[in-house]
């Protein structure tokens, strides 16, 4: 049994370890290890394409995380008061948003937005004042952020709702009995209790968006996110530089995940 468990953990972590090890390769070829050096990190960090892709991914992931934690929390709070058909409808939509494969979301968003833009752009041009260039709607930051947010917002709703369900109702009633305003109750009682879930949702949304390849691949338009850059470099051939970028991505998401796990456990785990 023990041997089996150890080999499963090795199976999970050896490939990651190999990427990390080979990113310190001093040689020019990806698969021959010749001494250790950090030269590929230097190369990767000074490559302007990597820098641009990183900044794009960062902007997208931050916007996605902020939007989804705000909207998801608002929806989770409202949904607990909702009953009957609207409630069932919302629950259905949340599950569909989570269940539909990313690739279908990417395709459907691409097709729908291209169609809508084809219709809206001439319309905008016709109502725009003479002499001023009308705005031209196209795929870009907006479409990636919107498509990612669909999934991550639903994730936040589920996380925050679970937290609300586990909350002590007596505290809210006590606050009401003591004549706190609804806003006061929310700010001083509800919010502190659901905050770990919101923060965890924020970090998970960020990680999802930052790591997502398939949705961005369809809807990013001319923008290149980091996963898209990595994907196309791998298609061109494996270099130690890709290993270095991959290692940095792994370390970054690991750090965020540790934070998320820590925050979730802090509140959801009952005292032992």
């Amino acid at each position, binding site marked *: *049994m023990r041997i089996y*468990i150890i080999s*499963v953990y090795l*199976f*999970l*972590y050896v*490939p*990651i370890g*190999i990427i990390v090890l*080979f990113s310190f390769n001093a040689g020019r070829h*990806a*698969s021959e290890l010749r001494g250790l050096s950090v030269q590929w990190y230097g190369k990767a960090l000074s490559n302007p394409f990597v820098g641009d892709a990183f900044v794009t991914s960062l902007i997208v992931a931050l916007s996605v995380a902020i939007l989804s934690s*705000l*909207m*998801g929390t*608002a*929806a989770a*709070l*409202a949904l607990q*008061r*909702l009953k009957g058909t609207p409630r069932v409808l*919302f629950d259905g*939509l949340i599950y569909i*948003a989570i*269940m*539909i*494969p*990313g*690739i*279908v*979301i990417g*395709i*459907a968003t691409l*097709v*729908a*937005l291209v*169609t809508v833009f084809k219709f809206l752009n001439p319309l905008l041009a016709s109502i725009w004042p003479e002499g001023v260039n009308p705005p031209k709607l196209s795929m870009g930051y907006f479409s990636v952020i*919107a*498509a990612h*947010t*669909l999934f991550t917002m639903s994730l936040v*709703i*589920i*996380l925050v709702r*679970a937290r609300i369900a586990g909350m002590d109702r007596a505290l809210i009633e006590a606050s009401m009995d003591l004549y706190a305003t609804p806003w006061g109750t929310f700010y001083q009682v509800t919010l502190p209790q659901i905050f770990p879930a919101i923060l965890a949702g924020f970090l998970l949304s960020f*990680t999802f968006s930052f*790591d997502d*390849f*398939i949705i961005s*691949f369809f809807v990013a338009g001319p923008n290149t996110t980091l996963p898209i850059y990595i*994907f196309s470099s*791998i298609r061109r051939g*494996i270099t130690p530089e890709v290993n270095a970028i*991959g290692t940095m991505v*792994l370390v970054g*998401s690991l750090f965020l*995940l*540790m934070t998320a796990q820590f925050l*979730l456990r802090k509140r959801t785990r009952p005292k*032992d």
Partner: protein
Amino acid sequence: MREESKSNRWLTAALLAPTSIWFLLMLILPLIVILVFSFGERSALGGYGGGFTFEHYLNLPARFKAFQNTMTFAPVGTLLCLLVAYPLAYYLALKVNRRYKLILLVLVIIPFWTSLLVRTYAWIFILGGRGIPVLLEWIGFEGVRLINTPGAVLIGIVYGYLPLMVFPIYVSLDKLDKSLLEASDDLGGSPYKTFMQITLPLSMPGVATGCMLVFILLMGEFLIPAFLGGGKVFFIGNALVDLFLQSRNWPFGSAVSVTLVVIMLITVSFYMRMALRNKTGRDESLM
């Protein structure tokens, strides 16, 4: 009183408004558009040319191989994940020392939330021409090809989705009333009997949840076959990327997507019904 409930209703509506708009514009509208596209003619440039035709649905057999691969690899991959995951979840929930439990569990979950792209890429490295095949050559097996084979894709699947399978099974095993196991033991039940009659049935909700999650994700998989199947083993996801981004046939691609979603909905609802019939309808949380 009346006044307050009215303002409450406004507040609820306001809180739900952004989410509703999002669902409408980013989920319902796009799904309707691909449904419409899938019945349209193909225009000269590969886009939507209006009209109404069943041509694309009748043409689906042209991508039969992709459907066949997906419908084979998704269940087989799910089963393999389950076989690898169950003993691990069992160990984590029932056997391991409390002190190491949390850290071991976190170590399983972490890989799932890190880049699948980078993790799958690691296997190109390991299975590729200069990875394991070189080691095999040393011990006398020449010319073994591992990458771009069905086996490579299955390894990638188990590697990528193992954490997602372990977690729900762990949760249901962890909740299991340990006194039942002791009772069975006291009554002279063999470990095998205890497992078959108590542990396994009680962990079925977790097994069902894990299988469904992995199966759903595998149905839409693109990266693993793209990296490890090398054009020989391809899924519907790979066909879709080709249809939308390379050979450009949006109406046909839409028909393929709609079919994928329909197959998924049928399989999942069939599955849920089975799970409910077996009284395993308890909710297992995703996280």
